[in-house]
C-alpha cells in the first residue's frame, strides 16, 4: 500500500507523456485515415490499391513489430542515418509517433471507408437533385453521415490507441508503462505498481468512453 501511494505521483507525471502520445497519434492518424479512405473510394485503380495494401500491412502486423522496425530497424540503415531524415528517426519520441500514427491511420481509414459505404445512393441523388455541387455534398451530406456512422467504432479505436502507447516503453520512452517498469526495477514489486498504472489507464478509457457516448447522443439526429 505504501508503495502504491509513493509511486502514484511519479506515475501521474508519466501519464502526461501517455496522453501526449495518444492525442498526437490520433490527431495525425485522422488525417492519414481520411486521406487513405478517400483514396480507397476513388475510381482510379492504382490509388485504391495503394490504400488497400497500406491498411492491409498495418492492420495485419503487430504494433510492436511496426515500432521495432521503425526504431531499431531504420536505425541500422546507413544512408538513412546520414540523411536529414535522421533528425526525425534518431529520437524515440518521433519514431513512436510515426509508428502509432501509421497504425491508427490504417484502422481509421477502414472505419471511415465502411462509413462512406453506408451512405445511400438515394440521399446523394436527392442532394444533387437539389442543385448542390460536389464540395457541398461532401461537406454537408457525406461528412455528417460518416462522422455519425463511424463514431462508435472510432471510440473503440481511440481506446485501443491509448493502450497501444504502452509500447512506447519498449523504445526507451518513459510513458506510464515505462515509469511503472522503472519503479519495479528498483522495488521488484510488480503487482502494486501495475495495479496503480492499470487504474490510471482505466480512468482514461472511462473518460474517452463517456466522451464518445455524449458525442453520440448529440449527433443522434433521429431524436
Amino acid at each position, binding site marked *: 500500500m505504501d508503495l502504491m501511494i509513493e509511486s502514484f505521483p511519479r506515475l501521474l507525471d508519466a501519464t502526461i507523456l501517455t496522453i501526449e502520445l495518444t492525442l498526437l497519434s490520433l490527431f495525425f492518424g485522422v488525417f492519414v485515415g481520411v486521406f487513405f479512405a478517400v483514396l480507397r473510394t476513388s475510381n482510379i485503380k492504382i490509388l485504391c490499391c495503394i490504400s488497400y495494401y497500406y491498411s492491409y500491412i498495418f492492420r495485419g502486423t503487430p504494433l510492436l513489430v511496426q515500432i521495432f522496425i521503425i526504431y*531499431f530497424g531504420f*536505425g*541500422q540503415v546507413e544512408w538513412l*542515418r546520414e540523411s536529414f531524415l535522421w533528425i526525425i528517426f*534518431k529520437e*524515440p519520441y518521433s519514431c513512436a509517433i510515426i509508428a502509432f500514427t501509421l497504425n491508427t491511420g490504417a484502422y481509421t481509414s477502414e472505419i471511415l471507408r465502411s462509413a462512406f459505404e453506408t451512405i445511400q445512393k438515394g440521399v446523394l441523388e436527392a442532394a444533387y437533385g437539389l442543385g448542390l455541387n460536389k464540395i457541398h455534398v461532401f461537406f454537408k451530406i457525406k461528412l455528417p453521415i460518416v462522422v455519425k456512422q463511424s463514431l462508435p467504432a472510432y471510440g473503440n479505436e481511440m481506446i485501443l490507441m491509448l493502450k497501444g502507447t504502452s509500447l512506447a516503453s*519498449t523504445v*526507451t520512452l518513459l510513458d506510464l508503462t515505462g515509469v511503472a*517498469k*522503472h519503479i*519495479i*526495477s*528498483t522495488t*521488484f*514489486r*510488480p503487482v502494486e505498481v501495475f495495479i496503480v498504472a492499470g487504474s490510471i489507464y482505466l480512468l482514461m478509457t472511462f473518460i474517452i468512453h463517456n466522451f464518445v457516448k455524449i458525442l453520440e447522443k448529440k449527433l443522434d439526429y433521429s431524436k
Partner: protein
Amino acid sequence: MNKFKRLFLSIFASIILLSTSVLADKIKIGTEGAYPPWNAKDESGKLIGFEIELANFLCIYMKHECTIVEQDWDGMIPALVMRKFDAIMAGMSITDERMKTINFSQGYADEVASLAVMKGSSLEGMDTPKAINLSTGGSAVNNALETLTAALTGKTIGVQTATIHQNFLESGDVGKVNIRTYKTQDEVNLDLAAGRIDAALAAAVAFTDYAEKSGKDVVLVGPTFAGGAFGNGVGVGIRKGDNSSAQGKKDAKLLKDFNKAIDTARKQGKISELAIKWFGFDASM
C-alpha cells in the same frame, strides 16, 4: 478390456514413478539468455555461456537435478520471488538494493563494468585511471569521477533496465546525464552503433563480445568500475529462506548448497577455467 485396463494402470503408475523421481531435488535456475558471454543463446536457441556451463557443474557438485529456464531480465527477481524458479544465475551482481528482496550466494565471478563509445567519439581519451573502486574512495576515485562528470554531463547514455549500471548513473556520481533504459543489452548495443546514444555502460565483456561479433567499432573508454553501486561480484540469487516453513527451509538449504558447490568449483579451478574460456581472462572470485 482387461488389456486396456492393464495398459492404463501401467502408464499411470509409470507417470507417478517418473514424476516423483524427477521431483526429488530438482531445481530450476533462471537466466536471461541475452547477456553474452555470461549467458546467451546459440543459433538453434540453445542456452550457452559462462553461467550455463558453471550452473551445470554446480548442480553436479550439489547432486541436484537442474533445469535452466529463460526469463526476461526486468522480471528476473519478481519471478524468483513468485517461485517460477529457485535460483538466478544471470550475471547478477550482489548489491545492497537487491539484498533487501533476495539472498545471494558468495560471488563466483567479477563483473567489470565499463563505458563504451563508437570510435571517433569526443569521449575517447578521457584522462582517468585504468580502474576505480567506488568502495575504497579516496582522491584518485574522486578525481576520476570529476573527470567523468565533466565529460558526461548532458550526454545521453544507454543502459539495460534494472541493472547496477542504471543505478550508478542514477546515483548522480557522474553528474546529470540523460539515461536511456533498454530491455536487453542487444538493444543498447544497437542504439550505440546507430549513434542514438553518446555512450553505453555495461559489463566490459558485453561490449567486447559485441564488437567482435558485429565488427562494429565499439571501444571502451574511461576507467573500469567496481564497488559501490556496482556491488560485490556476481552471485547466485536465491529466495530469502527462514525456518518457519518447509519452503523457507528448502531455500535456506539451497543457499548453503550453492555456497559449498562454489567453494568446490573454485578449489578445482573450474570457475577460472570457464572464465578464461568465455571471457578470455580469469574473472573468477
